[in-house]
């Protein structure tokens, strides 16, 4: 996969500029708000049933995911369309850069619940799957929303859509529920749905992050403008031969 190798070679050069370009405030505020609300709701001395506790965990998940709705906001996208690093690579880098904070947030959430209610068996793996799926859905919404919102700020679309989806999730009928209580018979079926949702959301994220600059033109349009396709072929040839300052250009346009 020479294309993939070329993309991966750009990662070190893109890391720092991407870290500078990401709006960290929204995701980190989301995580902080989520932890704050959880700390208020799950307090020592307040006996909560397992069902209620899992409800609070799910609310915390939604609040955390809400901040991530703004992770992919990148007003510079129209100007960086032509750079060597694909849109998928640039978005993946944003996600990867946030991963440590996401992991720390989720560990803190689980730790808080465990510390306050040590006797309660908490299905951590299943809840982690829910959190991962919810984050993936949020990012897919943000990626899809960036095509609709001005200045490619997909968070404007993704945040309300996430709130609407989460509310709808709580209102689903029992046969199709996503939020089953921990001791219910529907728990396993629900988590198969969450796993499916995770897969679909990742596929949607990848599909929505196809580089608009690298789209293939329809054949009738290629026939109308043969010069254009020749130009693209020539540029592709130039890229294959290797351009020493490509990474530098990417850095400048992202930063």
């Amino acid at each position: 996969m020479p294309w993939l190798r070329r993309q991966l070679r750009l990662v070190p050069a893109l890391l720092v500029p991407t870290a500078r370009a990401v709006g960290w405030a929204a995701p980190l505020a989301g995580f902080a708000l989520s932890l704050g609300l959880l700390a208020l709701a799950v307090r020592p001395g307040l006996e909560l049933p397992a069902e209620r506790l899992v409800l609070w965990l799910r609310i915390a998940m939604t609040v955390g995911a809400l901040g991530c709705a703004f992770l992919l906001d990148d007003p510079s996208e129209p100007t960086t369309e032509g750079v060597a690093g694909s849109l998928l690579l640039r978005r993946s880098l944003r996600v990867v850069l946030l991963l440590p904070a996401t992991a720390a947030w989720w560990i803190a959430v689980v730790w808080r619940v465990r510390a306050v209610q040590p006797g309660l068996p908490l299905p951590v793996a299943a809840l982690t799957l829910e959190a991962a799926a919810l984050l993936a859905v949020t990012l897919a919404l943000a990626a899809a929303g960036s095509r609709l919102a001005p200045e490619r700020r997909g968070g404007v679309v993704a945040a309300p859509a996430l709130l609407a989806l989460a509310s709808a999730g709580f209102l689903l009928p029992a046969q199709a529920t996503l939020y089953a209580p921990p001791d219910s018979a529907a728990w396993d079926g629900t988590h198969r749905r969450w796993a499916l949702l995770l897969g679909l959301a990742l596929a949607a994220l990848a599909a929505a992050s196809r580089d608009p600059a690298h789209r293939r033109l329809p054949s009738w349009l290629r026939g109308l403008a043969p010069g254009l396709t020749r130009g693209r072929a020539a540029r592709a040839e130039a890229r294959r031969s290797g351009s020493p300052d490509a990474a530098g250009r990417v850095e400048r346009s992202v930063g």
Partner: protein
Amino acid sequence: MTTTGEHDDDPPPAAGVPRDVPAEVRSRRSMLALAAVESGRLLRHPAVLAATALSVWLLWRWGRGTVPVLHYADIATQFPLAPLAAAALLATNLAVLRPHRDGAVDLYGATRLSLARRTLAHLLSVLPLAALGGVLVVVDLTWLAGVPGSVGAPHIAEAATGPALIVLGGCLGVLLGRVWRSVAVAPLVLVGLAVGSLTLADLYVGGHDQRSWVWLGTLLRPVTIDPPPVALLGRPATWHLVYLLGAAILLGALAVWRSQAQARARRRARAVTGAVVVAALAVATAAAAAQTRPTSPALAAQRLAAASNPTAHQVCQQRGPAVYCVFPGFEPQIALWEPTVRAVLAGVPPAAATRAAPVTVAQRIGWGRLAQDEDRLADAQSRGRGDNGPVAPVGTIWGRDGQALATSQARLASNVAARVIGPPDQVLEPDGEQPKSSSGPAVEMAAPGEGCGARAVVALWLAARASSHAAVGLRQQVTDGRLPFITFTNDVDADDVVWGMREGQFALALLERPSDQVAQTVWRNWDLLMAPATTLERLGELVGVQPPPHRAPAPEFGENLC
């Protein structure tokens, strides 16, 4: 970053505008025109459209379940409008930030409107959305008032709380947009508010007197599941509405004040806005103080009196074989109960029905949730019930559809059946002895054995046979119940019978058999079956049905009821 190009409200008139129109009037007209455009955009915003659909669905779903009690139905319109309030917050915030997102801030410098006027236009644009909320509430309450059996009258302040919440959401969205230019702030503030309201609503479970400060939140459910008479409700609805409107005006005035500060508006205009801020703050604070006062001693005494001797506060009507006692105003509900009561009594041997007549059906509500001191309430109830016999309790809320209908029919039918068969120590013994007088306080919930034995199976069978909905209610309790006993209400009254789970299972098994065959056997052996000592096994021999096996309850529930 671009700077906001601001100017006074009275620039030279544009071409085509008559010179004799004062600048102030021109500016106001422009502001109203902008408000009209923004309100149109707000109403067409995808979040608002989705929230409207959700609100309509929630109103419909909550309205169709039970026969409406309008002084409770008005409270139930508040939560369904919360999605619209949330959408108002998000959509107005996006509208305020639109020039920043689109890079059009400088272009506004060419218009005649100041930043403060534009802010005011955004605030005014929320009003049509609030009017939409008001229309939804009015349509919902009109629909509910037309439902057969509908009782009560809506409180205007409770009905207006939902639209006031929309105004509050919109004003908050505008303020957030004027303070922070990030679109991420509004959704985060929204979830913080939503979760905070959820927590406060949870804390309210104890009732107004336990934590009256939770009224500082936005939405509060009623305390009891069954609506009490309107005089005993005691919700500070008007003060809460004033509190919400005061808070909305405060937020709106702060947004305008912030805009004036950003644009360095004239000092006089800022002073006027400052005065509005102070006045709104005073109103909101006064309303907050008024709504968090504890329940008045007069109301508490009234509630205690009603709880200790509900009969004295009810009006009774004899209809056919039963007497129906309801709180004043609830009379239309009697017609809804009659078919169930008649059906239960029709299944009893005529002699037994005559002996039990008249059965008293009376409304009861979960007084414990309204009481300040549960011990005092229990004392008062035991004193007040001394001279009254047990009644067949029915809630003040009556199901209209689905589970609510099944549960309320099952409760009424089973309680009527329980009154027909009488308490275990009052029935005729199989050998025909006179009934023994009831001893001990009758308030003891589920007097031992009342819901147990063959007589309880017969009572539940009679109840489930009375209507298909009552049968569904019994089946739900037997199959879904985690507890080792059966009740058909969350607010169990002293006169509600608590039934054994095994008895419920046996009654369901009897329902599977041909009804006439079982009825003949029951009527033939009525006196034997009514004896407290008759076991399920004996009943099983008589009807030819194997009784369900004994099952040990989960350890956390202690021992079996029977």
